[in-house]
Structure formats: C-alpha cells, structure tokens
C-alpha cells in the first residue's frame, strides 16, 4: 500500500493488465488446439477454432449466382469510399470543418505526394487513378480487419473475404495501372512512344551505311541496331512483367496476412492475434501505398523517358 503512493496507480494497473493478458494467453494456448494435441484430449469448446483451410480461389456464397464473396467485399469498399467522399463534398464550405476538412487534408497530402515527382500539370492528370487504386486497396485491406468479418457464413461459405486476396482483383488493378501508363505514355509522345519498344532506327541506319559502301561502319551499325531492337524487346517484356509483379505482390502479401492471422487465431485464440491485426493494418497501408506509388512512378517514367533521350 505504501508503494502505491510512490510509484503511482498506473504501474499497478499495468502489472494487473499484463498478468491478465498473460493468463488469457496461457489459458487459451493450453485450452486450445495446441494444448489438446499435447495433452491428447479434446480442446475446450470455447477455444475450439476450426483449423484454417485457406482456399485461393474466391468462394461463391450463392450457388446460383456468379458472385464471389470478394466481389461483395469490393462493393462494400466502394460504398464506404463513395459514402465518405459524398458526405464530405455534399455541402462544401470555403472554411472546411469535420469530414470535409479530413478529406481535404487527405487530398492535399496525396496531391503533394503525386505532384512532387510528376509536376503540377501531370500531377492533376495522374491523381485520380493513383489515388483511387490506393484507396481501393486500402479500403479492401482495412475492412477485412473488422473483427468477425470473415466468420459470417452463407451456404457454408464465408460471405465476405478480403478482395485483395482474390487474384482477380490485384490482376485487375495491375491491368488498369498498365493501361493508364501506356495511355499516358502514348499520349505524351504520340508515335515516338512506340520506338521505346520497337526501335529499328539504328538497324536501318546500319544497313544504309553498309549499302553505301562503308563496310566497317555498316557492320558496327547493324550490331548496334540489333542491340537496340533487343533492348526495345526487353523493355516491352519488362512492362508486361510489371503487371505480374504488381499482381503477385499485392495478392501474396494479402493472402499471407490472411493465412497468418487465421493460423494465429487457431494456435492462440486470445490476445496474440491482436498484434497481427495491427501488423495487417500497417501492411495494408504499405501495400496500398506501394501499388499507388508504383503506378505513379511508372506513369512519370512513361511520360518523361523520351524527353530525356531527345534532350
């Protein structure tokens, strides 16, 4: 009692809480599936978590409809994002307050992030696609973290599932990103943009030199031309490979996070999964940032690249 005065109340509370948490962890660990295996008995009913059996393709909660559970989640994300922006911009005031202020803060931060590498003019054009990708990935990842989200069952299948863990969604985002990159690249440089991938100009010059009699220079030119064509080919392949890397980065991270959380819930049902929820929240943000940021990065490269070559 005398110590309480010296060290204050908060330490006592911390000690009590740690003890409670520790007891909860130990009890749930011993009482759960792992404890049951060790002792050879049945797990206590409240700890009897079903072992995870992750399945990569999205489930169909309604057998007669071609709607997957990831689609439903994507729609929820879309509704949430739309609701947020709609509510914030419904009655806008010159002096922002509350939700409008928050949304404007986010907008400014994102605009600064994008206009920093892309410049003011392109920044405004790139803004919608980059930010929408970011928000969509983030919303999908974070909605999934609502406790009990994946436990709602419909016809024996989970009704809701993180849309990022359905490979169709990352692939779709990668294709959208790719299309926008090529569109802006082509729009910025017109036909010369294609020369980045199909560069036959040095080869033609080499042949020209060969036929005009300069044999040595001609062969050198042809060699350089072949290298240029090969480089263009590599460039084209790398642009296509980007889509694959985009897809599997997001899909892999999100699926791994989902499985990790499920496994942790199975092993230690109480307290410990909360740590992984925090980790998943952070990871979701990082993945969204990477997807949006890389799209921005490729857009900037596509718009700038030939400028640098010609100057």
């Amino acid at each position: 009692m005398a110590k309480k005065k010296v060290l204050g109340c908060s330490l006592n509370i911390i000690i009590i809480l740690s003890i409670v948490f520790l007891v909860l962890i130990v009890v749930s660990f011993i009482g759960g599936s792992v404890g049951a295996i060790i002792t050879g008995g049945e797990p206590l009913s409240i700890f009897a978590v079903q072992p995870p059996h992750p399945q990569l393709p999205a489930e169909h909660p309604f057998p007669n409809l071609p709607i997957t559970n990831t689609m439903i989640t994507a729609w929820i994300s879309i509704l949430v994002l739309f609701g947020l922006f709609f509510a914030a911009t419904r009655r806008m005031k010159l002096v922002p307050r509350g939700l409008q202020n928050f949304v404007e803060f986010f907008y400014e931060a994102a605009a600064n992030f994008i206009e920093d590498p892309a410049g003011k003019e392109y920044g405004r054009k790139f803004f919608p696609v980059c930010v929408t990708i970011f928000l969509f990935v983030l919303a999908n990842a974070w909605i999934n973290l609502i406790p009990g989200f994946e436990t709602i069952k419909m016809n024996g299948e989970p009704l809701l599932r993180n849309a990022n863990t359905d490979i169709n969604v990352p692939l779709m985002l990668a294709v959208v990103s790719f299309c926008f990159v090529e569109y802006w690249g082509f729009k910025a440089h017109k036909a010369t943009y294609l020369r980045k991938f199909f560069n036959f100009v040095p080869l033609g010059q080499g042949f020209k030199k060969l036929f005009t009699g300069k044999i040595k220079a001609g062969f050198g030119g042809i060699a350089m031309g072949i290298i240029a064509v090969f480089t263009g080919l590599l460039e084209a392949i790398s642009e296509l490979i980007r889509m694959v890397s985009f897809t599997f980065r997001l899909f892999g991270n999100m699926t791994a996070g989902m499985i990790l959380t499920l496994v942790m819930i199975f092993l230690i049902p109480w307290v410990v999964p909360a740590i992984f929820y925090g980790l998943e929240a952070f990871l979701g943000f990082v993945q969204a940032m990477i997807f949006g940021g890389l799209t921005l990065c490729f857009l900037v490269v596509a718009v700038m690249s030939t400028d640098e070559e010609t100057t």
Partner: protein
Amino acid sequence: MGLGLDLPTFIGQLVSFLILLGLLVYFGYKPIRKMLDERANRIKEGMEQAEAAKQEYEQAKVAVQEQIGKAREEGQGIITQATQIGDRLKEEARGEARKEAQALVERTRIELERERDKVIDDLRHEFVDTAILAAEKVINETLDKEGHRKLIEQAMEESTTFKEN
C-alpha cells in the same frame, strides 16, 4: 486448387473499379479540387489586395507628407508677406499721421495769427474811438470832430508801435 483466375470475376471487378473511379472523380476529387483552387484563389486575391492597399497607403502617405511640406512653405510665405505688408502699412500710417499733425499745427498757427491781427485791429479801432471820446470830453468843442481825428491819426503815424501793422 488453382489461383482462381476467372474472366467473369475479373471483368466484374474491373467494372466495379471503374465505377469507383468515376464516382470518386465526380463526387470526390473534382469538388475538392474546385474548392481548394477557389480557396487558394481567394487567399491569393486577398493577399494581392492587401499588398495593393499597402502600396496605396504608402503612396498616400508620401503625397500627404509632400502636401504638408508645401502647405508649410506656403504658410511661411504668407506670414512673411503679411509681416512685410504690416510693416509697410505701419510706416505709411505713421507718415500720414505725422503729415496730418504738421498740417494741423500749420493751420492752427495761421488761425492764431489771423486772430491776433484781428484782435490788434479791433484794439486799435477801440483805442481810437476811446481816445476820440476822451478828447471830446476834455476839449469839448474846441475842435470839430474832423479836426480831432486828423490830429490823432497824425499822432499815431508818428508812434512806433502801431506803424508796423
């Protein structure tokens, strides 16, 4: 257990995403961009106005200072002029007063002289008359009046005091 690649799902997600993109552009980014631009413009305008007002104030301050200087100079001029005029007026007034006084003195002197002459003349007459009366009474009929007068006048001609006037 494949990856779950599925064209209908892919297209469905693509459509969903494009709808989201459209919705956010029309209900989110555009109004926010407009609002931010408007606010930036407002602030810029306000600052420009403040700058203009400040410049105007500076200019006005200089102009006022200039005018005050000019007015002070003018005032100084007017005071100097007024002093000069006053001095002149004083001098003039003094001269006139002196002249007037002199004229007055002159007039008075002339008047006085005339008065004296008159008095002398009167006295002479009176004296003559009195002398005649006295002589009449004394001599009584020894001489006629005309003879008397001649005598006295003769006497007076001879006396030095009455001869000058």
